[in-house]
């Protein structure tokens, strides 16, 4: 199930929330656990088994580690086994086609590609449940003995399919004991609706421009169309992903959880390193805590630091998808970050902030070209078109696209930079405007909810017309 569907919003959510609010403290986790299973099976009725299996493995690993608390060798062995099982599952389902395809290419072998489907959210939930065993091993958290509580953590429906990657340590206390209040429900509803609006009103709308440009012949598009297209994608992926994270955080609040934030205005960053501290924050945190630091981080001298960064960035690329363009995309950012660490970082600090913001945004934009085109050749052709390689700077199609998407583009720029936040903070300065702001918030939320519902209903509006008849 996805949040931006009528089934979720007007069937699953009202049902689950009603049951959740009227039931007693003890039953709440059971309701969450069951609803999480229903939510997940709705999209993955068969591979839900994989998720249950991996949850049981990590639960058992936790119990054994606890039982043999004073036998370091047993604990290490258990950790290794559980991490191996998790990574094996991830590799089989996510990377087998990629590995087999590459092996066949390089060695001329002809292994059959099993063509396994990628179970929804597997990249998210394996990382989540791995955080439990690793943190338990490092004695950052206490063991979870209650199997319902542990399963509730993994299957928590707000975050299971698309993050944020909530570490067990983040919600350890709340899983066992949390407060559900009207205040938090209202606050959470606001965050949820903000996310829904980002996804349904902004991402889907601006995304139509990119889906139009993406399928065009890159050898024939005008430079303006190329820029508009990739700009549209940059906004689409940001509002889509951060919208989903907001919805998760908001739903978490409604249920009484405090999930970590996942995005913090990434497009206003003044360096690529900063961008990655503001984009998909929980993934960065995960790699830092469980890969970069254990490898020694930056404490083992410059050469080791660079190697460690390289490892992290290849993995980050691979995490986003099993194909070479994602690896390339990861390496691209890895290289930029290493360069920034070595030389560029100090220069960027001295430059006017406008210049460093533009540098970062452009670097990210070219990154998205790598991310979205399937081959390096396509990526290069696209970038060439952006720089006038097709010898068509502007054509009427580009102008039509510009005028059709102008307002939505402006809204996207406004909402993805901190202009909007600055504006709100400005309003809060004065008593009078603050009053208006507070009164208008519930009204705006209601309008957003109604508008999003209209978009969801419309997405299935499907007139069957004999146009030629």
């Amino acid at each position: 199930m996805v949040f931006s569907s009528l089934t979720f919003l007007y069937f699953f959510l009202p049902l689950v929330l009603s049951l959740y609010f009227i039931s007693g403290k003890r039953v709440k986790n059971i309701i969450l656990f069951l609803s999480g299973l229903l939510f997940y099976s709705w999209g993955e009725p068969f591979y839900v088994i994989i998720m249950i299996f991996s949850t049981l493995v990590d639960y058992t690993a936790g119990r054994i580690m606890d039982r043999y608390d004073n036998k370091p060798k047993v604990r290490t062995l258990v950790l290794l086994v559980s991490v191996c099982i998790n990574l094996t599952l991830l590799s089989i389902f996510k990377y087998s086609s990629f590995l087999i395809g590459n092996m066949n290419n390089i060695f001329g072998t002809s292994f059959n590609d099993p063509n396994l489907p990628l179970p929804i959210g597997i990249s998210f939930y394996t990382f989540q449940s791995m955080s439990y065993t690793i943190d338990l091993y490092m004695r950052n958290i206490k063991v979870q003995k209650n199997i319902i509580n542990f399963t509730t953590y993994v299957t928590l429906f707000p975050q299971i399919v698309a993050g944020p990657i909530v570490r067990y340590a983040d919600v350890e206390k709340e899983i066992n004991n949390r407060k559900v209040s009207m205040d938090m429900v209202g606050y959470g509803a606001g965050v949820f609706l903000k996310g829904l609006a980002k996804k349904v009103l902004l991402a889907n709308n601006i995304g139509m421009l990119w889906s139009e440009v993406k399928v065009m012949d890159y050898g024939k598009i005008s430079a303006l169309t190329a820029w508009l297209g990739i700009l549209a994608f940059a906004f689409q992926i940001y509002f889509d992903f951060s919208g989903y994270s907001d919805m998760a955080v908001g739903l978490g609040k409604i249920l009484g959880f405090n999930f970590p934030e996942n995005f913090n205005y990434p497009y206003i960053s003044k360096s690529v390193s900063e961008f990655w501290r503001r984009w998909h924050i929980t993934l960065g945190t995960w790699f830092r805590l469980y890969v970069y630091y254990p490898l020694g981080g930056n404490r083992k001298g410059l050469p080791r630091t660079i190697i460690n960064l390289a490892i992290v960035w290849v993995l980050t690329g691979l995490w986003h998808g099993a194909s070479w363009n994602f690896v390339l995309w990861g390496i691209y950012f890895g290289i930029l970050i290493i360069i920034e660490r070595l030389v560029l970082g100090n220069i960027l600090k001295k430059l006017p902030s406008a210049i460093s913001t533009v540098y970062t945004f452009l670097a990210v934009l070219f990154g998205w070209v790598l991310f979205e085109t399937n081959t390096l050749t396509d990526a290069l052709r696209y970038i060439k078109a952006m720089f006038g390689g097709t010898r068509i700077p502007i054509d009427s199609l580009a102008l039509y696209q510009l005028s059709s998407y102008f307002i939505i583009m402006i809204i996207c720029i406004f909402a993805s930079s901190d202009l909007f936040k600055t504006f709100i903070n400005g309003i809060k300065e004065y008593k009078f405007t603050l009053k208006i702001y507070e009164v208008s918030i519930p009204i705006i939320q209601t309008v957003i909810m109604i508008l999003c519902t209209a978009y969801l209903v419309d997405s299935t509006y499907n007139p069957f017309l004999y146009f030629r008849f």
Partner: protein
Amino acid sequence: MNNRNNKLSAVLFMTILLILPIMTLASKKGTFSDVENRNLATPPKPSIEHIKDKSFMNGVEDYLSDHFIGRTKWVEAKVRQEILIGKEEINGVYILNDMLIQKLSPPDYEKVDKAMEAINNFASDNKANVYVMFAPSAGGIYSGELPTNAPIINQKAFIEYMYNKLNSNVTTIDVYNSLYAVRDEYIYYRNDHHWTPYGAFCAYKPAIKRLGFSEISYNKYHIEHASNDFKGTLYSKTLYDKITPDMIDLYNYEGGAKVLSVEVNDGMEIKEYESIYFREYLEEKDKYLVYLGQNQPLITIKTDVKNDRKLLVIKDSYANVFIPFLTQHYREITVLDLRFIRTSYNNIINMDDYNQVLILYNALTMENDDTLKVLNFK
């Protein structure tokens, strides 16, 4: 934000969340949507099979959205909001101030060439004189009024291109200029992709001369405004209701020839009607069907015209509103819709009966269906 406001947000959120599904559940469920011209989803039945292939889950979403309370109102609200933020094109339809115009994709010239070849083959295979008339669509006549920079297809040039592909034994009928000259008149529907009877009449004038008759002048006709609330296909695509609904005009020539019978062959059985106007469709949503009814494989119209002229019309729906004007000139008109024909036309009609054949299509949609290739089958 303060406490009180959060509580208000919580109450509003939960209220909407509960009220809409409850109202949806309680509402009466229809089975057919007039506006969308399709059957609505039926409640999905859970079974292992349907859960495994997710058709049950998709069925729930379809059912919920098809029967969502006030479904069309939601879509209308969304369209208004889109226009508010500067969209000039909704669901493949341009929104102009006073009319909707279908956005067409550029022609596929390979297909066009094949279709013209089929017409050439047809003309050389048969003795009858073949006449071709490609009518422009509203987007061609009003290309200057489309949104700024919107991709334009030069329909005048495109029709000329097609006519140039035809052999000299095929007579082409240019109606583009006749229509363009009267572009300020009501020649295309505002909410539908067809031309109006007046548009068809303006094309009839040059056409009938080419076919060898003198025209029946406009003032001979009595025009009945049979309906003034027709909202056609373009309205259905957009649900944009700020455009004046269309009129359904029926042209009658009191002192002229009378239609004796209209025989409709739907491929299974033959039914006979008295009029070329099917008034029962005035009560329905798609009122364009008043003209000659539903599209059917074969229709034969007999009139009391005192000559022995018989005409074969090979056509799409643009012809439906045009054919009434022909009934003043021919004793018998046979109307063939190739979209329903999978076999040689010789199995259906006797070509020796006709000394004239009129091929009448809307220029831009003609090439999208490959049905003209049927004309290659002898």
